[in-house]
């Protein structure tokens, strides 16, 4: 059994130690907000926080998560009250929405360390997260708004 903290709750799963965190979160635990996009760490759809750092869950084996603290989109805030989530709704950022959990988790990491990022810093931080619907400009605007209002 592998144990870790997930969204403030202690969980134990019966998975092989090389199982990617992504499938443990989605299938073993049943939190499906974290998405599978490429399985190779290339798109960022599976971004979650491990001990506060944004990681690609599809490239993170369970052996690296043991006894650590994982936060997914479901645990980012109660009632979608994180400034980023509020800005995402206010600016109608999502289109298909599939990449947006990963986008928000990646942006949340940025604001946690740099509450007032400029545009260049936002772009540099977010550049690894693909959005095929092309909502990039609204993502930037929403991060800026959350930064102002958060």
């Amino acid at each position, binding site marked *: 059994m592998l144990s870790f903290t997930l969204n403030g709750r202690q969980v134990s799963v019966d998975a092989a130690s090389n199982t990617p965190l992504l499938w443990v979160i989605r299938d073993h635990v049943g939190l*499906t907000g*974290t998405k599978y996009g490429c399985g*190779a760490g290339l798109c960022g759809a599976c971004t979650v926080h491990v001990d506060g750092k944004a990681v690609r869950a599809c490239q993170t084996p369970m052996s690296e998560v043991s006894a650590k603290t994982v936060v997914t989109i479901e645990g980012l805030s109660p009632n979608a009250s994180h400034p980023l989530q509020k800005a995402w709704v206010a600016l*109608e950022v999502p*289109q298909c*929405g599939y990449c947006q959990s990963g986008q928000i988790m990646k942006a949340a990491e940025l604001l946690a360390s740099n509450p007032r990022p400029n545009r260049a810093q936002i*772009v540099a931080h977010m550049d690894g997260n693909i*959005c095929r619907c092309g909502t990039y400009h609204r993502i930037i605007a929403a991060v800026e708004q959350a930064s102002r209002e958060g």
Partner: protein
Amino acid sequence: MTIAIKSSDVSRRGVLAGLGAGGMIFCLTLGTDGVRLLSEAQASAMANAPVTPWVRIAPDGTITILSAGAEMGQGSMTNLPMIVAEEMDADWSRVAIEMAPADAGVYGYLFNNNIRMMAIVGSRATMLYYNQLRIAGAQVRKVLLLNAAERWAVDVATLRTEPSLVINPANGQKLTYGEIAAFGKVPAPLPSVDAKELKSRKDWRLIGKGVPRRDTPLKVNGTAIFGVDIRLPDMVYATTLHSPVHNSAPERWNDAQVKAMPGVLATVRLTNGVAVVAERFEQALAAAGALKVDWQKGTAAGFNSEEALNRDYVKIHHDPNAPTQAVHTAGDAKAAFAGAAKVHTAEFRSDFGYHAQMEPLNAVARFNDAGDRIEIWEGTQAPDISRTAVAKAFGFKEEQVTHHQCYLGGGFGRRNGGYEAVEAAQIARAVRRPVKLIWTRTEDLAQGRFRPQSYQCLEAAIDASGKVAGWKHCVIGDGGTALLTGGMRIAYYGVPNQLLELRGISHGVQVKHWRAVAHVFNVFAIESFIDQMAVDANMDPIAFRFERMGATPKARRCFETVARMCDWRAARPQGRALGLSISERSGSLGAGVVEISLDRQSGKIKVHKVWVAVDGGIIVSPDPAKANIESAIIYGLSSVLHERVTLKDGVVEQSNFHDYNLMRMSDLPDEMHVEFVDVDTRPTGLGEIGNPFLAAAISNAFHRLTGKRLRHMPFTPERVLEVLKA
């Protein structure tokens, strides 16, 4: 004439239970003139099948409206019920949306006046449902008014409505729609509504203003359920290995070895692949990675895409005996060329393109114990097509297949064939457990159904006055009329003599619709060619299109609008240039301008600014409409600058996002400006109009900057450097 109602997944008892006593149900039926609402009593008298509710009003005031708009990010799920609510004069805050069952006979739009479809493709949702849904909403409002008039014993013509409220202005009396639903009767037949009785534009509360999308809050907290998120009791997981050369059947594979791997339950033979089933998805993935399959010879065996495009297509172009299909003719092109003062020619190429929707293909399937009914869960552009495909695969009647629509993690033309649903069902039947099938990204790409590659050959005849009097355009490729000829028609210009042709070839590679498909390469060729002629005539590109191409008034308005938006004649900073283009798609017309710069060392083109002026008819929901066009711009820029699929010996050479390059945030233009031309015509498609103009606009800007022309898309840095050197 009205035809009988078909069955649906919602039983009458279930609906009534949900309403409580006294609620009103507006059912749906089909007339030769479109979707019509009718009373439950009338519906029941017409058919024995369960009735199909479209609009339900509960005594507590909740109004439930079904939506047939598959939601892939374009906003149709919210937009379509909003159109009904407008004409109902419903209080939008009391409207609940449910996805319509997969039954095109009931919920489909009327296409080409003869078939009913639910497929949300070709930017059709708002365009094709708009009139039908307005009339339906107006009928519901009329019934509510009639009931209030009867209760108050007054002339219905003296009453008016406010959102979810009927008012008698004579005495100030009011009844909410919920109160009316508690006592009201839905008459049979329903009162008809003439188009003249619809609200006038000045009275709209919702159309033209828009409402927040209902899916947005679910997409910021992880609760939106996509097909890939479905979880069923006792469910197992499957993934696939399809034939590397498209459409080859598996002969044999290392079955014992794979089945011995942890958690593996079964392997299942598919038409062109092998599925591995395991207790956990990570186990299925590992097992699929260990599969060694011998394949029969596939349809695309030996195919080399670059060789075909650079050699075979050229040969076809020069072969006077090559089979040729006329796409469109006007006037006498032959005579126009015979009498031409000057003839221009040009050729353009375009590579295969992949959809790259973020959610890899997937489906969940479950049979009942008797094995004679199946349920499918997936996000699809066409639930009706999926349902039909699954029924056909098992020799079932459609009634034996229930389809549960989910959110789509991108569509772009990829998600509407039912292929994955059929595979999931075949696997579920083989293992006799509910199955979630997920394709890996690598499978999704290798088994792509691509936007075809194409070779474009254009000729123009200039008459003595300098006008373009004759036009020939031949497209060469694999994909037939449906995938190769869109966008060839230049109805927004007034060229009198035209000959548009298709010369087909078959490679055995899977090809399919893709956001605006053929418009992408045809408009690239057409609008680059026109720019070439404008340069030759030493004319401004807009003036050339007006004076020498005979641009229509609608096209002129788009050009004039975009010229104003970008200040077309103003000088640009050193090293930057503008390029212009126009395209039609799904009834909309859009003129666009880009401002680019070029890194001559690396060959990298940077698009700094984009301006687009769109005539899309009445804009029903302005913000999602704008978002659709912004999305298509990014999608288009990505494809024009980065994306190419190549095949060697029949096998796709790219395998994931490291070698199929999608646009990232750092490539985003600094500015994007979208404006809608203010018109009073019916809505046309907006999901794709922002995409096809881009290739030519960039190519034309590149020519202004360098004096050289890009004739092969995508304009990758390597290609740009080659062109600069030439």
